[in-house]
Structures are given as structure tokens and as C-alpha cells.
């Protein structure tokens, strides 16, 4: 046999035997040593007989069947279960396995003819090496520790730690589920709310009033621990003494995971280390810091507190010494030993210049002393009243003084009737201001600062007591915020003793406790920030799941601070209106971020839907979820977390369905649009052909301007559709022009359009402008405000024609007969056709014609009006349905800057703030409202400016009525994104959320009362889309006003 493998260096038999012999010798020595140790250990441990479930033989038998790699685990398990001797035997078993492998090795070496002996030998040697290594490690541990059980347990703990770390790492990568978050929030909320109780409990029997709270550790392994803090200062140097619980407590979920590792014991006690307590001081005072430089560990809380008290005592001693030195006082006031102030452990104390005091100071004043003080004041009061009575002041002054004092006494405190019932509750911020003012009155602070304080405090405290924050926690946070601001703003003016005393006197002595998230003495900005975070926390209770992210929270905080600042700086006066406004703004802000958060959730869920659909979905569906979440989360329960999750999933499904429907609808509309474009192109081609024919046969007409007012001279031979050029109900001549320019790309280009034909907005603007230009060029409008209007709809058409860059207009009857032709350069028409009339829009109502009309418009009295070009007939278009005069469209005014017709642009604009189209107003004259969907104007209702204003008010009122309880932006979103006809369609299908039904009901009511209906998309009449909700509502409200039924549609 040759041993020429590449990866195993050849050894001679002799060498191998020597090596084996050496190993055997070593093994024998170790075995002997183990046997000795086992004997000693067995003696020491003296296990109970019944513990020994396996005898040595059994163990050996079992071990012989176990592969070497698993032996270690088996050993640790056995040890852990108490089978100590068996475990020891197992160690021997491992050794036995090694021995047996060596025997096999020996055989192979001795018998090289055995098949695959080289390969097998290699495997065996590797196995021996590995087992030997493992055994050596184990034996080393036994030698070093001299306690195999301890070693084994340590190994078990290591193993579990390793697995747990892995498990935690796995878990850290997973997003927190709704259920987990709900539970966490619930626990956090409980913890915060329990802080007060804990604090109260811990106050008893302690020399110093520590602020106790349960804190969340910075590791998932440390679940919650207790911490007490005590703050004071030494000559302006912050000092904080901290006592905290050192423990490791495992989350239930982690324990469950450990169960899977075979750890069979139950309960936290297995994993929770016995807690110890630590005390340390954080101070900027060098003396104290040097004296207590480290963290001191104790077995009990009491011991730790005792140490803390020692540190505090020493700190106070140093403080008095330093103050004594500074003040030059020979003896410190021994009675003035400070006790605790409260502070939030999460925030840096800012108690500069103050002394620590107790929220409930032990009154050193005896009852007798107190009584004497009261009597002194009472006497002074009586004397001053007597002086007032007898003084030289007039009765009016006396009464003024008494009334002033009385008013002041009432301010800010609760008022009771004779029965002792509260008839007016005290308001925190008023009380705070009153107390501050009292301090000013006795000369401790500047009176001029009171007003300033009032501004700040009132604005900030408004929400706390205004009803929007109903939870105790919320109120407390705001109180903390308001009061903290009050303190800070006057921080340099209020003596430190007042800083300490005011929170106590205001009933929020444990402000740090009360606010939980905002400390008593932090600066205003920090407080605002703290409150913002607090609100974020509160909000997060309202919205579960992974909706909130850091960016949102940060943005929200910034916005909140900005809001506070804004009110503090500009709206500071403490009146009810400001408070109300502040509250509204704040609620808006909160709701805004709720919406953002919900949208974020949608995207988190990976809903691959178009933005429009998302927003529409938010508006129609998810905002309902917001409300539901809010309600649900006020009572966080695990089961609800599940149902909310399902609900969200359902909403997403609904959204997807809506999106699919929307896509289908868009496709349908696209097809319709394509068809319409094709039709129009055909028409244009036909028109061109007919023009060519006409040009050929009527060449004279192009060279010589046609006579005006001529009788029909020829039948129109072109095939242009007459309905495209007819002036319809409510339209003017320019509308006919606009329609032609928009519908005829060549015409638009000939008139100078340079843009894309597909750019409907640009084309529409161009058409509006050019229509007016054409009207002026061809004599239908002049620069004095005169224009030719049409008295009867659908009777006459005005066809634009282009020839060598010159424009002309052919007037045709509805039957296609040419009435006359207006060429470029013609003067304003001084003789008009029967169906036409002239209106001068620059004149006021006095020039308006009085119209005698019949219901079918056939008889129009056209009184004479003196115009620029002589005597014109005037008249009004009559509404064929109502028989009432209808205001015609105003002449489109050209914006000198843009060159665009003002009318066209304005009619399409929506006020982003109100969500309704901009209203036109006038100065008492008749005002024309021309709300319509782009591309056509359907109605012109004659309303006075007062009526228009009333419509505006009703509109605003109705929107407020319908949406005031909804998140901000909801109305804006829906009125921009959902057409009126679409929401009605969704309603019919039962797909509108319940909270939007009032809006739909209102739209239906408007339809019923006015007989109007929202426009739908129409490639000809409404090419830019269906009528938006706001546009329809405005149109309908105007109609309701006109027919005298506005009250019926006022909510």
C-alpha cells in the first residue's frame, strides 16, 4: 500500500504507532484524572438516589450510540436536569468514543489492504482530533472551574444567549406587528400613568422626595426597570442623584423562544436575574463628584436610597458651605434644609438658581403662628377698608376700588353657589396668571411681565383645557407645558424660591411626574418639544401599526413648535377668540399628521396604486379607518389590533377594486376621446374640402368685402356641421369661435397657435384669446365695451374662415343659409340681425334694457340705447324655461399682462383655500356668475353681489357643516379629485363610506331643489372632464338663490 495522498502527509507505520501510543498514554492519564475528580465531585454533591435516573451502564450504552458532535449538548442537558453522575459518565463516554475510534484507526493502519482504508483512516483521524479537542476543552473547564455542573450550566447559558441573540437579530429585522405595537403602547401607557402612583408610594417614609418611574431599558432584554431621581443644585451646578434597579427581565416572547430550545422551566424567575440596586450622582460640582465618583451597588432598594441620601446630604452640606462663603453669612440657616423637587429623569434639569424643595413641605409654621399671620392680614384689611370708607375719594372711586378688587378675586378660581356647587370651574392658565400677578403685586416680580406671561400661557394652555385633549395625561402634559413656559419666560425675573414654589402651589408639585414627558424646569422650547413628543406619543396611541415613522414625528414636532411660536409671538393676547383659534389650528395640525400617517401606512403596505387613487382612497375609505383607529385605540386591546389589521387589509382590497374600476373608466374615456378626435379630424377634412370648393366658386367674395346685412345670398355648400358653429343657450359669439378653434387644429395654427394640439389647457387659453381677437377684428366687439349678442339660442352660427392669413366670419342660420359675412377690418356692427342685440357691458344697470318677453323668447322689446356708434338695439336673452331675463356673458376682458381673456381663466380657477370657484363680485351691480365646467358655459344667473356673497356664505357654511368633524384636507382632496357625478355613481353602488354620505345627500338635495345635475364628461361640451363637486354645488346654490330656494339647501 502506498500512502501518497496529496492532502494527508504520509507517515510510516512506526510513526503512526508512536503517535498512537502517545495519545493512548495521554488519554489514560486524563481518564485517571477524571475518575479522581468524579469521585471527589460525587462525594461533594452527594446526589439523592432518586435523582439518578440513569446508571452508569445505561449512560455508557446510550453514549456509545451518540455521535461525538452531539455529546456536549447531551452532557449539558443531563447536568441541567440533575443527572450529574450520568453527565460525568458521559464525559467518560466521549473519551471512550475517542478510544474506539483509535482502535479502528489502529486496525486500518495495520491492515492497509482493507478497502478505502486511506480514506477511512483520514475520516477517523479527523474525528479523533475533533473529539479530542472537545474533550480537552471540557476537561480544562472542569480543571479550572472545579465544578463541572457550573461549567456545564455556563455553557448552557452561553448557548441560550447565542440563540437568543440570533433570535433577537431575526426579530429586529421584522417590522413590529399591530398586535405587538398595541401591547407595547398599552404597557407604556400604563407605565406612564402608574408613575404618579409609584411616586406617591415612594414618597412615604423617605427623607427626600425622589421621583420614581418605571423606565424602559435600552435593550430588548431589559424590559422595564425602576428609577428614582432627585435633583438639586449646588451654586448653580446641576446635581442629580439617581437610584435605579439593575435587573434583566426577559420579554414573554423571548421566553417562549427559549422554550423551543428545550429549556423546560417556567416563569420569568428562571431568566430574571436577581435585581440589585445602584446609586450614583451626576453633578457638575467637583467636590461632590470627587467624593462619590462611582456607581454603588446594593442588594436592596433601601440600601441604595440610603446611599443616595448620604450623597444628597453631602451635596447640601457643600452647597451651604459654598453659599455661606459667597454670601458672607456666618452660620447657615439650619432650618432651611432643602428637600426634594421633582424632575423628569428623561430631561435635563434646568433648575438654575433654585433650591430643592418639597412638593409638600413640612410646615414649620405652628398653627399659632399661622393664626397670627392671618389676624395681621385681616386687621390690615379692615383698616384699609375703613380708610377707603373715610377717605377723601368720591363714591365712584370707592365703588371702583371695591369692584376692581372683587373682579380680581373672582378671576381664575372656581366659583360656587350658596349650596357649594361649582358654577364656574377654575381655569388652569387663569389661575397661573393670577398667582403670578399676585406675586407681582407683593413686589416679587415685575408687573409688566404679567401681561407677557398671560399671552404665552394662555395660548399654550388653551388646548389642555379646551376639550380637545380629554385624557388626564394629555391635560397634564399641557399643564406642564404651559407652566414650564411661564416659568421659563420669566426665568430671570422670578426668584428661584418662586420657581420651586409655584408648581407646588398650582397643584402640580410633581410636575415631572405629572407631565411624564416634560420636566418642570426645562426651558420653554424644550417643553414645547417635550409636549410635542408627548402628543406624538398620544397620537401614536390613536394610530396603531407601523404608520408613524421618525420623519413624520419630527415634522410634526417642528410644525407644533412653529404653531406655539406663532401664537406666542403674534396672537398672544389672552382672549377667548385666540384660544379658540389656537385650538382649531392645533387640531388641524394633529389631523393633518394623522392623515399623513395613514397614507404612509398605505404605502408601507405596498399598495401599488396610483397617487390619485391613493388620495381618493384615503378620502373615501381610509379616513374612515382613521376615525375607527382613533376610537379603537383609545382602548387598546389586542383583539382590536387584529381586527383593525383585517380592516386595513379590507380597505386596501377596496382601494384596489376602486383603482381597477378607475382604470377601466379611464380606458373607456380614452377610447371615447380617440373616437371624438377621429370624428373631429374627419369633420375638419370635410370643412377644408368644402372651403376649397367654396373658394373656387366664390372667388370674388374673397377679394371684395361682402355687403353687410345683406339678405341670404346663397345656400352654404360646405359640409361643416352647423351645430358646431351655432351659438347655444347661454353662449356668446366668442364661444362659437372658441369651439371652432379648439376643434380645428389647422385653424388654430393659422391663427397663430404654436403649442401642442394635445395640450388642451394651452389650446383653450389660446382659443379664448383669439376668439376675442377675431370678434374685434370682424366687428362683433369694439373697444368701447360694445358687443353683439345673441337673443335666441341655436338660431345662428358664426363660422370662422381663414384666407391668406386673413380672418372672416360667415353668419349662418341653423338651416345653413348664409346671412352675411364679416371680414377682417370691418367696423363694429351697427346694424344687427333679428336674433342679435348689442350690449355695452361697461355701462351700469341703468342702461340695461327692460325686457318684455314671452316664455318662448319670441318677442323681445328692444329699447334704444345711445352707444358709441349710434343708436343700438339692446335686449336680454330670455331663459326659455323660466321666462326670466338671463344675463349674457360679459365681454371677455384681455389681461394686458398675459394677453389672455380674464373671463376664461377665471372661470376655471378654484380657490385652494375654500375649495370653491372664485366668485365674481361687483359693486352692487348685477353680477354674472359663470361657473361651469371648462369648455362651455351652461348658466348665467343674474344675482346681485349681495346674493353672490350669500351664496358664498352658504357654501362655506355647508362645507363646514359637512366636514368640520373630518380630518383637515379631506374636503380639499375630495372636491379636487372626485367628480360630482362619480360620487353619485359610487353612492348608487353603495361604495361611499358612511361619513361621506351627508355630502352625497346634500348633492342629491341640490339636484332635487334646483333640477340641475352635475355635468358628465363629454368630448364636445365638457372635454376637460366632468363637473367637480365644488363647481356643481356652487352652480346649484346660485340656481337655488335665483329661484328663491336657498334656504332649502342651507345646512
Amino acid at each position: 500500500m502506498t500512502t501518497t495522498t496529496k492532502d494527508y502527509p504520509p507517515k510510516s507505520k512506526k510513526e503512526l504507532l508512536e503517535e498512537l501510543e502517545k495519545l493512548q498514554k495521554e488519554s489514560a492519564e486524563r481518564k485517571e484524572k477524571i475518575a479522581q475528580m468524579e469521585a471527589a465531585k460525587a462525594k461533594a454533591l452527594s446526589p439523592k438516589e432518586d435523582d439518578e435516573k440513569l446508571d452508569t451502564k445505561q449512560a455508557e450504552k446510550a453514549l456509545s450510540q451518540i455521535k461525538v458532535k452531539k455529546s456536549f449538548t447531551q452532557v449539558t442537558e443531563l447536568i441541567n436536569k440533575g443527572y450529574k453522575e450520568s453527565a460525568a459518565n458521559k464525559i467518560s463516554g466521549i473519551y471512550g468514543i475517542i478510544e474506539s475510534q483509535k482502535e479502528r484507526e489502529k486496525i486500518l493502519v495495520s491492515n492497509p489492504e482493507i478497502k478505502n482504508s486511506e480514506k477511512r483512516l483520514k475520516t477517523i483521524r479527523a474525528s479523533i482530533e475533533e473529539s479530542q479537542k472537545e474533550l480537552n476543552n471540557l476537561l480544562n473547564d472542569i480543571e479550572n472551574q472545579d465544578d463541572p455542573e457550573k461549567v456545564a450550566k455556563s455553557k448552557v447559558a452561553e448557548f441560550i444567549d447565542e440563540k437568543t441573540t440570533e433570535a433577537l437579530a431575526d426579530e429586529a429585522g421584522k417590522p413590529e406587528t399591530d398586535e405587538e405595537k398595541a401591547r407595547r403602547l398599552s404597557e407604556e401607557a400604563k407605565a406612564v400613568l402608574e408613575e404618579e402612583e409609584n411616586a406617591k408610594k415612594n414618597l412615604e417614609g423617605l427623607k427626600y422626595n425622589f421621583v420614581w418611574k418605571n423606565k424602559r431599558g435600552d435593550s430588548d432584554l431589559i424590559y422595564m426597570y425602576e428609577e428614582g431621581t432627585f435633583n438639586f443644585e449646588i451654586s448653580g451646578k446641576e446635581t442629580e442623584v439617581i437610584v435605579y434597579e439593575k435587573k434583566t427581565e426577559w420579554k414573554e416572547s423571548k421566553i417562549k423562544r427559549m422554550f423551543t430550545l428545550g429549556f423546560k422551566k417556567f416563569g420569568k424567575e428562571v431568566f430574571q436575574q436577581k435585581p440589585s440596586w445602584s446609586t450614583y450622582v451626576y453633578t457638575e460640582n467637583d467636590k461632590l463628584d470627587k467624593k462619590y465618583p462611582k456607581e454603588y451597588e446594593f442588594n436592596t432598594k433601601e440600601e441604595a436610597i440610603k446611599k443616595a441620601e448620604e450623597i444628597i446630604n453631602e451635596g447640601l452640606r457643600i452647597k451651604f458651605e459654598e453659599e455661606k462663603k459667597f454670601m458672607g453669612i456666618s452660620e447657615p440657616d439650619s432650618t432651611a434644609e432643602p428637600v426634594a423637587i421633582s424632575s423628569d429623569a428623561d430631561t435635563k434639569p434646568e433648575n438654575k438658581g433654585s433650591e430643592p424643595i418639597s412638593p409638600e413641605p413640612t410646615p414649620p409654621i405652628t398653627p399659632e403662628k399661622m393664626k397670627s399671620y392671618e389676624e395681621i392680614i385681616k386687621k390690615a384689611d379692615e383698616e384699609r377698608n375703613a380708610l377707603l370708607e373715610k377717605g377723601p375719594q368720591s363714591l365712584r372711586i370707592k365703588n371702583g376700588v371695591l369692584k376692581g378688587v372683587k373682579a380680581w378675586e373672582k378671576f381664575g378660581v372656581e366659583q360656587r353657589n350658596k349650596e357649594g356647587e361649582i358654577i364656574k370651574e377654575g381655569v388652569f392658565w387663569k389661575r397661573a396668571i393670577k398667582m403670578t400677578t399676585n406675586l407681582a403685586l407683593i413686589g416679587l416680580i415685575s408687573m409688566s411681565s404679567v401681561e407677557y406671561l398671560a399671552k404665552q400661557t394662555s395660548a399654550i394652555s388653551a388646548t389642555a383645557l379646551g376639550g380637545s385633549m380629554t385624557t388626564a395625561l394629555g391635560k397634564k402634559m399641557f399643564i406642564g407645558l404651559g407652566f414650564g413656559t411661564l416659568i421659563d419666560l420669566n426665568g430671570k425675573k422670578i426668584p428661584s424660591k418662586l420657581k420651586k414654589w409655584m408648581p407646588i402651589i398650582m397643584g402640580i408639585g410633581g410636575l415631572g411626574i405629572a407631565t411624564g414627558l416634560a420636566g418642570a424646569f426645562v426651558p420653554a422650547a424644550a417643553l414645547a418639544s417635550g409636549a410635542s413628543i408627548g402628543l406624538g406619543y398620544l397620537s401614536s396611541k390613536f394610530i396603531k401599526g407601523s404608520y408613524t415613522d421618525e420623519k413624520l414625528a419630527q415634522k410634526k414636532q417642528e410644525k407644533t413648535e412653529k404653531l406655539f411660536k406663532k401664537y406666542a409671538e403674534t396672537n398672544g393676547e389672552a382672549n377667548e377668540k385666540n384660544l379658540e383659534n389656537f385650538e382649531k389650528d392645533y387640531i388641524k395640525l394633529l389631523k393633518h399628521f394623522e392623515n399623513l400617517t395613514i397614507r404612509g401606512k398605505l404605502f408601507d403596505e405596498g399598495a401599488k396604486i396610483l397617487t390619485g387613487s391613493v388620495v381618493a382612497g384615503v378620502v373615501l375609505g381610509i379616513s374612515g379607518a382613521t376615525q375607527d383607529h382613533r376610537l379603537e385605540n383609545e382602548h387598546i386591546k389586542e383583539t382590536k389590533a387584529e381586527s383593525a389589521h383585517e380592516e386595513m387589509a379590507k380597505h386596501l382590497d377596496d382601494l384596489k377594486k376602486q383603482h381597477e374600476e378607475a382604470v377601466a373608466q379611464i380606458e373607456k374615456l380614452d377610447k371615447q376621446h380617440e373616437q371624438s378626435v377621429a370624428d373631429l379630424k374627419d369633420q375638419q377634412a370635410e370643412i377644408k374640402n368644402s372651403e376649397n370648393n367654396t373658394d373656387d366658386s366664390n372667388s370674388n367674395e374673397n377679394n371684395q368685402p361682402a355687403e353687410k346685412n345683406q339678405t341670404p345670398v346663397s345656400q352654404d355648400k360646405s359640409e361643416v356641421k352647423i351645430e358646431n358653429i351655432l351659438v347655444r343657450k347661454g353662449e356668446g359669439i366668442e364661444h362659437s369661435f372658441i369651439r371652432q378653434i379648439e376643434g380645428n387644429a389647422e385653424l388654430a395654427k393659422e391663427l397663430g397657435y404654436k403649442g401642442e394640439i394635445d395640450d388642451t389647457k394651452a389650446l383653450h387659453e389660446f382659443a379664448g384669446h383669439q376668439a376675442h381677437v377675431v370678434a374685434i377684428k370682424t366687428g362683433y366687439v369694439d373697444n368701447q365695451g360694445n358687443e353683439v349678442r345673441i337673443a335666441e339660442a341655436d338660431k345662428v352660427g358664426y363660422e370662422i374662415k381663414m384666407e391668406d392669413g386673413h380672418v372672416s366670419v360667415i353668419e349662418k342660420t341653423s338651416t345653413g343659409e348664409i346671412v352675411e359675412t364679416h371680414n377682417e377690418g370691418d367696423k363694429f356692427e351697427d346694424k344687427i340681425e333679428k336674433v342679435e342685440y348689442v350690449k355695452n357691458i361697461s355701462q351700469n344697470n341703468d342702461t340695461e334694457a327692460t325686457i318684455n318677453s314671452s316664455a318662448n323668447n319670441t318677442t323681445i322689446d328692444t329699447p334704444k340705447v345711445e352707444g358709441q356708434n349710434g343708436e343700438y338695439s339692446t335686449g336680454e336673452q330670455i331663459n326659455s324655461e323660466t321666462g326670466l331675463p338671463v344675463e349674457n356673458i360679459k365681454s371677455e376682458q384681455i389681461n394686458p399682462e398675459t394677453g389672455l381673456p380674464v373671463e376664461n381663466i377665471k372661470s376655471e380657477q378654484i380657490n385652494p383655500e375654500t375649495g370653491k370657484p372664485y366668485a365674481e363680485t361687483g359693486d352692487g351691480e348685477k353680477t354674472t356668475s359663470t361657473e361651469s365646467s371648462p369648455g362651455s358655459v351652461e348658466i348665467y344667473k343674474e344675482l346681485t353681489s349681495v346674493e353672490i356673497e350669500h351664496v358664498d356664505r352658504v357654501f362655506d357654511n355647508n362645507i363646514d357643516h359637512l366636514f368640520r368633524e373630518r380630518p383637515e384636507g379631506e374636503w380639499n382632496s375630495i372636491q379636487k379629485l372626485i367628480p360630482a357625478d362619480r360620487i353619485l355613481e359610487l353612492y348608487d353602488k353603495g361604495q361611499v363610506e358612511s361619513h361621506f354620505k351627508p355630502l352625497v345627500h346634500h348633492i342629491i338635495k341640490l339636484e332635487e331643489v334646483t333640477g340641475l345635475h352635475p355635468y358628465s364628461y363629454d368630448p364636445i361640451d365638457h372635454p376637460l372632464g366632468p363637473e367637480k363637486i365644488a363647481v356643481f354645488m356652487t352652480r346649484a346654490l346660485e340656481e337655488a338663490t335665483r329661484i328663491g330656494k336657498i334656504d332649502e339647501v342651507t345646512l
Partner: protein
Amino acid sequence: MDNIKKDLFDLFQIDQMPPEKGEEMLGRLAKLVFQAVLVRVLPMLSEEELSEYEKIVEGDQDAVILFKFLSEKIENFDEIVKEEAEALRIELSKQVE
């Protein structure tokens, strides 16, 4: 000697009293000052201003408005308050001693 240095707050050891009592005591002291201040400042008001003052105190207006009004109408209002507070302090400190 100490009492001379002490203000009304310290003189009556307000911070050593139970909170409710301390607040009440502060209010009573402040009322004495405020009354004295009103006695001094009301005669300084014009007829019109006095009428305005009466409207404020008779109505259900915020007391802050009252102080704002007085601060605006009386040029050295803050000084007057301080003087009256000091007068009361001197007057009462003798009795407390």
C-alpha cells in the same frame, strides 16, 4: 434685622405653608396691595377712562385685561405697585416682629 430684608413672601413664610394656605395667603396680601393701588390710580383716570374701567370690572372680562388697561393708562403703574407693596411690607413687618 432679618425682617427688613425679607419681602412679604418671606415675611409670612408663604413657602412654608401648605399649598392651599400659601396660595390663599398670597392672594390676601396681593389684594391689600391691589386695593391700595386702585385707590391711588383710579383718581388719575379721566372720566372716559373711568367709565371704561367700570365696564371692565363690571363685565365678565379677564382680569388680565384689567391690568393691561391700568398699565396702559397709568404711566408709572409698575412703580406704584412696587411702592404699595413696599408700604405694606413695612407696615406688616412691624406687626410680624
